[in-house]
């Protein structure tokens, strides 16, 4: 029994040390957002603020359009997540539960495109968006990234494991294909829906390159762009930057905590069988 206790203690200590090491940088950013700018660069450096101030938050919230950036990013993340989930789930379903010519080819191409760095195709994408009139529009950052191969991959893996018998039974009963999808598959896909939703929300929330390519209009920018704007040609506006960074972390954490339960079972089913 003692051996077990020792083992447990080591286990705990190890976890706590690692967790601290993992969180300290984040904590530092958050705490620094409450320091006045002059304190940030004073030596000796401080961890906890010597002088707590909300000035950074006040000035960055006033400085411009912050509520607009925030609502833009929320809109983009939520709508894009919704589209992503639907589109990826449907695609995953097609690849998982039907046989048809070209199925493997399509799947391979999708995975292969994961390898293309966005910088590489930035200019052609820009020109393409221009042709479709989606430049400088939030739809330009909602729709193109929605067909993410990772989402399709996860959806397919998950759906492959759903029992065919349900589908066959429904067909025998004369149900139409889309009805099967919406009335049977969808309800059974809660875990993977939650998984894709969390990932998609997080990716769109943290997107930087896409909005950079597409959006110029100040009123349509997203939070990540706003953060980058604080880095000027000649100097960096640290106080506003840190405050906004802290605020920007919160929604993602909230979404994660909310969907967490489904998350684990979703990834499990999605990636274990392969």
């Amino acid at each position, binding site marked *: 029994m003692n051996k077990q206790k020792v083992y447990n203690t080591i286990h705990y200590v190890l976890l706590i040390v690692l967790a601290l090491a993992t969180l300290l940088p984040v904590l530092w950013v958050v705490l620094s957002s409450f320091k006045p700018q002059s304190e940030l660069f004073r030596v000796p450096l401080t961890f906890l603020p010597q002088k707590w101030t909300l000035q950074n938050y006040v000035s960055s919230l006033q400085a411009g359009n912050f509520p607009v950036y925030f609502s833009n990013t929320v809109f983009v993340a939520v709508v894009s997540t919704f589209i992503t989930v639907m589109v990826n789930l449907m695609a995953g379903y097609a690849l998982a539960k039907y046989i048809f010519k070209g199925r493997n080819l399509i799947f391979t191409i999708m995975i292969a495109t994961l390898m293309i760095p966005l910088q590489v195709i930035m200019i052609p994408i820009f020109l393409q968006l*221009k042709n479709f009139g989606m430049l400088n*529009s939030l739809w*330009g950052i909602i729709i193109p990234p929605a067909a993410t191969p990772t989402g399709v991959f996860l959806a397919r893996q998950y759906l492959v494991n759903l029992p065919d018998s349900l589908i066959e039974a429904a067909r025998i009963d004369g149900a139409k294909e889309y009805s099967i999808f919406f009335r049977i598959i969808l309800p059974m896909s809660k875990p993977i829906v939650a998984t894709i939703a969390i990932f998609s929300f997080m990716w769109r929330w943290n997107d930087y390159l896409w909005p950079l390519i597409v959006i110029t209009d100040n009123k349509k920018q997203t939070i990540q762009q706003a953060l980058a704007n604080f880095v*000027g040609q000649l100097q960096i506006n640290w106080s506003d930057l840190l405050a906004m960074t802290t605020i920007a972390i919160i929604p993602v954490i909230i979404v994660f905590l909310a969907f967490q339960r489904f998350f684990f079972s979703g990834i499990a089913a999605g990636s274990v069988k392969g």
Partner: protein
Amino acid sequence: MKKILGILLILVLVSTTVFAAGTKEETGKDVTLSVLWFNDANEDEIFLNTIDDYLQANPHVKLDMQIVAYSEYDQKLKLMISGGNPPDVARITTNTLSVVVDSLEPIDNHVADIEAVKAQFLPSMVAFASNTKGEFVAYPTEATANGMLINKSAFDKAGIDVDEVSKDWTWSEWESIVKQVVAANPEMKYGLTVDFTPHRFSTLMYQFGGHFLNKDQSNMEFNNPGTIAAIKWFKHVHDAGLVPKSVWLGSENPAELFQAGLVAGHIGGSWNINTYNKNVTDFEWKAVRMPKAEINSSVPGGKFIASFKGSKNQEEAFKLMEAFADKAHNEMYSRDTFNIPSRVDAQVTYPSNSDDFEVFLEELKVTPAFTANEWKNTNLSKVTTYIREQIVEVLLGNISAEEAVTNVDKKGATYFK
């Protein structure tokens, strides 16, 4: 059949929303000017404040400020121009000028007497803003100069009268003086820090008698005795521990090091005055004349506003810019952003630091004119990042200064073909 139609219908609806990312129609006389802008501090607010009287007097004009991060500014502008919808007005740096100069709408086409207009501004600024055809393509707003800001308290503690010694000093004199300063101040570690940009480095290069291009800017000529001497000297001060390695090798921010009291001097520029005013509370600082090697020199620079060929609302754009560049507005803007005005007739009374501005103006006055011609050269602008990388290679000890300049000339030559 029905369900196929159903799905098709959904797809059609989705695609129509895609295409409905509409454009705004301008009705009647009302004009909304798109203004592309980037900030160092809060220049956009000051701009709007300054131009407010013009907007009040012209209620049919509205401004749509579009702020872009500086690091992506040039790329963004290029994308917009190549995409066929450039902004009506854009804030332009000298760097950006060299990139987009051929896409700018010449002011010549919009004023009666272009020579009279040009005469209103500093000659170096006019030189920057002239294209290869001699047309004047951008209104200068603020002028910037590189210069040296020092930690006066540190010099005092070492018993050195910095105003006296800096009147006409050389870099060798500077070296022995600054060693005393560092020795007298236990918290201070270095004598100098230089911003991690080719522009700031070129201050040293010009002072050592070097240059980037040949006499008529038709080809690279980075390989010259002055440039080589400058690079070697730069390596020497790094190796001697007078300059922190973490700036040019580790991208640490030099202004932050200066504010923390770790370095005795900072080769930055007139724009640092504003920041240091706000952030430096622990010691006294001021601008002093830079040492010389062969010559005294700074590097001219500045910002402009310009409009583009193909901009939608050119007439109104030019009226706005003309107003913003006139004496009253230029003075107000320069005063509030703590910058040097670009107009020769501007009289700016700064709330503080007028001595510091005097120093920068002095530096600008002795700067040779060819420096502006180099920095506005489009081909050079494509090689500057490579130049910076090669200098770092020398600092790292991977190659010699001679090899570095040879590499640069080789690479640069391909752009001048």
